[in-house]
């Protein structure tokens, strides 16, 4: 029997295999969060245990310490090719953005830099449509030009699983294998496959992180969920949006859109 999770898994594996076949050099952005860890797990499935491309952390130095510890453990256990990509300081970002968004924009610059350094033609990311209204508009294979900018007004048509795997000259293609997954889907899959995740997702002293950003710009939510089934149950009844604790989304109406247009994840 093939259920909904199986179909999502099969589709993501299909997308990852397409990316590896058609876009080289290729790398995956690994934020160590639940989504990108799920993505990494799917890559292990797609390629029978061996992830054939490097994983990159856009490192601002501001992640929670638990995140860095978790990262080191996983690199060892899963035998990953790991690249640490340090991000430039906030002073180098667009000054017209509100302050928390500027902190996030450091990653955009870090990404641009590492793409240039490695001549990457493809970058795999774990974003989902339901996370954030603007991400809802994305394509699975999304070409970007040299500036990494997202031209949302003129996105190429994408249908019938025929993907635009040709980067524009000097540009790259972003690959989003998790677009069709919802937050609950991800947790159900983590539960089914026993995928390890950073302990911060589980409640401690009545609080847990539902969405994991950097430590200065993420706030926790009230919760008593200490196991994955409890998290799933909480999500099934909640009406809080997932990114409620992410400061960069709420500073101004168009802050997130502007971040994305400039090349954010």
């Amino acid at each position: 029997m093939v259920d909904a999770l199986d179909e999502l898994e099969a589709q993501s594996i299909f997308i990852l295999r397409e990316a590896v076949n058609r876009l080289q050099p290729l790398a995956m952005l690994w934020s160590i969060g639940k989504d990108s860890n799920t993505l990494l797990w799917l890559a292990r499935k797609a390629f029978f245990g061996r992830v054939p491309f490097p994983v990159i952390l856009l490192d601002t130095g501001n992640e929670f310490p638990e995140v860095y510890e978790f990262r080191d453990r996983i690199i060892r256990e899963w035998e990953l090719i790991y690249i640490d990509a340090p991000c430039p300081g906030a002073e180098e970002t667009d000054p017209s953005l509100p302050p928390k968004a500027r902190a996030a924009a450091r990653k955009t610059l870090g990404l641009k830099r590492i793409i240039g350094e490695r001549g990457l033609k493809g970058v795999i990311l774990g974003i989902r449509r339901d996370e954030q209204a603007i991400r809802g508009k994305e394509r699975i294979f999304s070409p970007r030009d040299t500036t990494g900018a997202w031209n949302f007004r003129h996105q190429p048509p994408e249908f019938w699983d025929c993907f635009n795997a040709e980067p524009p000259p000097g540009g790259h293609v972003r690959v989003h294998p998790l677009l069709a997954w919802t937050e609950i889907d991800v947790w159900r899959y983590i539960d089914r496959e026993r995928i390890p995740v950073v302990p911060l997702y589980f409640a401690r002293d009545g609080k847990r992180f539902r969405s994991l950003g950097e430590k200065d710009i993420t706030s926790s939510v009230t919760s008593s969920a200490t196991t994955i089934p409890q998290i799933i149950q909480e999500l099934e009844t909640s009406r809080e949006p997932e990114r409620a604790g992410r400061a960069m989304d709420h500073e101004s109406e168009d802050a997130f859109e502007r971040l994305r247009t400039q090349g954010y994840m």
Partner: protein
Amino acid sequence: MTAEPLQLAVVGHVDHGKSTLIGRLLHELSLLPRGKADELRAVSERRGVAIEWSFALDAFQAERDQAVTIDTTRVWLRLPQCNIAVIDVPGHREFLANMVSGAADAEAALLVVDANEGMQEQTRRHTYLLRLLGLEQIAVVVNKLDLVEFSEARFRELEAAVRHFLAELGLTPRLVLPISARHGDNLTAPSANLLWYRGPTLIEALQTLEARPSRQAQALRLPIQDVYRQDDKRILVGRIESGRLAVGDTLLFSPSNKLARIKSLEAWNARQSAHALAGQSVGITLDRPLFVERGEIASHQQDAPHLTNVLHATLFWLGVTPLTAGQQLRLEVATAEAPVTVEAVERVIDTDTLAPEPTEIVRRDQVAEVVLRSRALLALDEHTSLPRTGRFVLRANGETVAGGLASLRGHPNQRRVVGLKPENLTPVDHKVTRTSRAERFGHRGGILWFTGLSGAGKSTLAMAVEQHLFRKGYSVYVLDGDNVRSGLNANLGFSPEDRVENIRRVGEVAALFADAGVLCITAFISPYRADRARARQAGGEAFHEIYIRADLKTCERRDPKGLYRRARAGEITEFTGVSAPYEAPESAELVVDTANESIDACVDQILRYVAISFAISSRA
């Protein structure tokens, strides 16, 4: 909830209220995230408008400013009885390409028509496109009844018009409902303003929509995506688009027409299984070392895909540059891609009037029926029966310019022409074996397939090698254009399919020579990998590809028959190297560099290769 969501596309003319409908529905079903309703109130106030439910979806700044949806968005409606993924699609004309991207996944459609304005251009165009995409399930809502004072007469008038229009397309709507999206009439509860209406509410209507029938019961189609080498295993990977397979099944690969059995189903961190179903991404290994590439489709021998060089297709043209006959494009179907030529534009249809246009130029947003021809054989299905291998896209300069639906009527399945190769490659029932022939002649039979540009030196080398080998006592014979074109292939011209046939025949004849114990040398440009691969398959183990390599400049300089001069002058069309491609071998058994080596050195190189490869004791 593990039931897969039903994909519902919401379509209709710009400003007829699609986005408002979805936003309002989310609100009434309590599916908007907490705070969103307040946010919408605040944002709408800031803009000086009454609550704009469409803002829930129109997340883009630009969209909010113009209240126009630019791109497609998906939202999930989780209802007690079912689970629907709503695809909101842009209605504005310029965003047609985005519309197709969104609606292409849909299993059902909700058509929104403004009660005040009635059916407009996009209403017709979207419906026609949905029909083309194979959608048959349509429900219709007549919106903004509040603007016509909830008039029953007006509703009935529009209902009749819509039903009539849909009937012309061969469609019957499941339901036609009156609503007001902005004020919430008849969305989730019956409305006091619509007492004359006795039908279901929109929510009730949506729950009657059916998901697509299971693909597992259809013929097996596994398009090969890639081949991975791991621990001495060759794992073919791909997603099963329809049907089911099991370890031990005999698979037929198209278009190469090879057979092999599934030896194993590879999996990581999953229960080992002997079966796999439509929807699963799999990895398989075969019981024999077959050379199978990305682009091939695996199926069972029964209900295999159609093989053809030429097909009729219905295209919807999305490109900025208009399409005319003669243009060359790239066709992508499943994991295969091939260059194709538009041989003819048979009909162009205006999607507003649905009437044919007296023109052979296809402009953006028009639909056309065309004939496409490809050099390589394509494996395809009728789009109505197996959509995943019957629908394709066309690309030009890296951009998607059209979506196409294949129709195979009128063109013979070429699988019979190519023939089915038995699993056992050695000939049956010959009492004289290859080994006895080899002993008689003192060498093994085989094929030296020379390939290279005109003027590279194929014929010169072939003749010289033949002479040397003959003197040494070999049974050897050269096949080239001169002794083949005027006899065996006298009934062939220079059209693409004739050229394919020309090489196919040479490959088969060479295979017969090899079987007879003779060393057969062929000297044809044979520019296409697909053709050479077929010849290799015919020749089996005894086939050796010899790349006679010289760059185009050198060949043109030599121009022994004056053909390059004439080709450059335009007197000869489709001349390899000038106006037609040459696909160099990727892994030829031998490469002979005539640009930098003397004729004698090249001949020596080939003779040494023959001595090693065709000696009685050697393996091919």
